[in-house]
């Protein structure tokens, strides 16, 4: 006898942002069928309205009590709601950058905005997934949308390479993640994250189940590697510069902001829920090694780049490294004595780790990084010209030379973004780094924080070089000027204001962000 599940309105509460984004995507797709004129300017507007609505609905659930809904597959918790909010902001800002970019290349299509919104829906579902099969399907929704967007403009060899490389490596990393999930299912006999966490705790305490321990470790490592590809952590970062460079710039903005935020949040949720049952420092060692390699690798590789878009791609790797410091501090257990650069220093040993504080730091960093990176790619996208794409000089530093004389406002905006990426006060990026490093020091990861501060100092060099070029180099004779476009300018103004305000008054996110530490761990 079939017993149908009874679903109440609470079950749909966390899903509303994703439902609104998908409905917006379907509307944009249908509008393409009934198009009566060549004007498609209403499509970005529709996209932005959908993301604003999605953000409002996500914001409305921030103060909910963490529970599992939809038979335990979906969580309703403030952490998920806040990340959904950040995702909607990232997708909305990227959509604002798109019209001018696409019009300049005669490539306006409704499918572009529909895929942006579908990707946003997949990301929102991903951070709410509490079950591995559901999580994998949502990861695929967002990945497929992003593969198609990366291959949207295939002019010249670079964009074609980007689309192909992203598809192949993305599919490979999804397969690695799926393999890990299958092994973990074999070890725990469940795919619901809370049940898996409880079963893992039994596997690591009950001696009769100890033969499942290697399987559990292999599964966790493969899942970690799969997520490592998605967040572009060293040594899984190889695809990032080529793909970020070759993809259309608004898509790159969305990938570096929203996709990264979603993958990070999903990774944090999976390992927080599963990690409770794992004894020792296995997760701490794994994440602090990843953070160490990513911070050093990302920053050193960004140093010699003259191509600003590539430089921003490497910078996005290094920012994943700083975020991983925050993630590593989630897995310090009180009483941990592991020493060394990657471990807990003797000075701080015995300090009580503040998980909620670390989660708040990660959330603030994701928000700050989202508004900053979308803005930076927005300026780049407006400056590049079609004829340069084939030659590959579209994003050379020289294109920014003398921008301060030609377009003072644009130069100010770009300078604000660069200072924020470099973590220089009073910008949002500085507050983000401060929060993450503070919770890491509280947890005792002093060695890792010292590496983080040193690599930030290295990073300041290549971010400030952009500022130097804009303000202290003469403009080239035939320098291209950014076209005037209302929606691009709106996106840049919004993100500049957000970067400054978040940096000067981080307290305005106060009561909202204070909820961010609350994650549904299940029972």
């Amino acid at each position, binding site marked *: 006898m079939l017993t149908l599940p009874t679903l109440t309105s609470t079950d749909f509460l966390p899903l509303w942002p994703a439902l609104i984004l998908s409905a917006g995507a379907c509307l944009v797709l249908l509008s393409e069928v009934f198009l009566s004129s060549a004007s498609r300017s209403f499509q970005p507007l529709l996209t932005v309205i959908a993301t604003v609505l999605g953000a409002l609905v996500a914001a409305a659930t921030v103060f909910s009590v963490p529970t599992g809904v939809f038979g335990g597959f979906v969580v309703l918790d403030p952490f998920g709601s806040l990340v959904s909010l950040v995702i909607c902001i990232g997708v909305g800002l990227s959509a604002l950058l798109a019209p001018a970019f696409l019009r300049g290349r005669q490539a306006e299509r409704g499918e572009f905005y529909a895929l942006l919104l579908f990707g946003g829906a997949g990301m929102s579902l991903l951070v709410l997934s509490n079950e591995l099969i559901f999580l994998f399907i949502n990861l695929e929704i967002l990945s497929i949308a992003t593969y198609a967007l990366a291959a*949207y403009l295939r002019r010249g060899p670079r964009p074609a390479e980007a689309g192909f490389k992203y598809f192949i490596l993305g599919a490979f990393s999804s397969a690695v993640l799926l393999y890990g999930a299958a092994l973990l299912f074999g070890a725990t006999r469940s795919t619901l994250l809370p049940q898996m966490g409880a079963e893992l705790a039994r596997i690591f305490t009950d001696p009769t189940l100890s033969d499942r321990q290697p399987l559990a470790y292999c599964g966790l490592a493969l899942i970690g590697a799969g997520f490592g590809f998605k967040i572009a952590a060293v040594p899984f970062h190889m695809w990032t510069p080529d793909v970020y460079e070759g993809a259309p710039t608004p898509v790159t903005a969305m990938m570096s902001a929203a996709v990264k935020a979603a993958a990070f949040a999903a990774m944090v949720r999976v390992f927080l829920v599963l990690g409770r049952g794992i004894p020792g420092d296995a997760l701490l060692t794994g994440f602090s090694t990843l953070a160490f390699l990513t911070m050093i690798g990302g920053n050193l590789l960004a140093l010699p780049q003259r191509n600003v878009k590539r430089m921003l791609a490497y910078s996005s790797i290094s920012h994943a490294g700083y975020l991983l410091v925050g993630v590593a501090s989630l897995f310090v257990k009180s009483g941990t004595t592991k020493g060394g650069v990657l471990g807990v220093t003797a000075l701080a040993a015995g300090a009580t780790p503040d998980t909620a504080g670390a989660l708040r730091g990660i959330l603030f960093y994701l928000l700050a990084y989202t508004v900053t990176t979308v803005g930076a790619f927005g300026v780049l996208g407006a400056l590049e010209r079609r004829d340069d794409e084939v030659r590959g000089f579209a994003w050379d530093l020289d294109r920014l030379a003398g921008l301060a004389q030609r377009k003072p406002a644009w130069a100010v905006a770009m300078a604000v973004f660069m200072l924020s990426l470099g973590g220089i006060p009073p910008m949002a990026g500085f507050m983000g780094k401060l929060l993450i490093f503070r919770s890491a020091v509280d947890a005792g990861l002093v060695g890792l924080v010292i590496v983080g501060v040193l690599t930030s100092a290295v990073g300041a060099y290549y971010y400030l070089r952009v500022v130097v070029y804009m303000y202290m180099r003469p403009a080239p004779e035939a320098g291209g000027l950014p076209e005037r476009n209302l929606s691009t300018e709106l996106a840049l103004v919004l993100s500049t204001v957000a970067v400054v305000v978040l940096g000067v008054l981080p307290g305005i996110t106060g009561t909202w962000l204070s909820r961010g530490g609350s994650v549904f761990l299940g029972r």
Partner: protein
Amino acid sequence: MTTFLFYFFAILTVVAAAGVIAARSPMYSAMSLVGTFFCLAAIYALLLAHTIAVLQVLVYAGAIMVLFLFVIMLLSLGEAVGPAKVTFPRVVGGIASAVLFAFLVVAARPFVPVGAQPPPSFGTLQSIGAQLYTQWLAPFEAVSLRVLVARVGAVVVAKSRV
């Protein structure tokens, strides 16, 4: 008997899968892939997942492989690529896979295949349908969204360059 059949098909699957990447001609690769799909279907049948086994043969070994072969023939990739070269990334990749394989062998050693004893309704269409529309409703709906996105994405990628 089940154990013997499992090992038989498992080894055949691995050999065929290795053939997919080792063959230098796309046609041989595609035919090896058909072999892989058939052996996988046999393993599903051994796991008493008969519906999945039938779908595997119908959809993958049938429909999808026909498409694959059409594409290969349309592109007329007659010329076989030269022999594989030993490059640095390949060596690193090979070492990484060997290490991963060693770990997996250690992890899988305590588990030997045994005959399964599931409930009689296991694997029937009826029980799959009942599971899909009750317990697994959320992933099922997510798959429908995924298919829609894949379709739109395919149209975007397949259309002539914009």
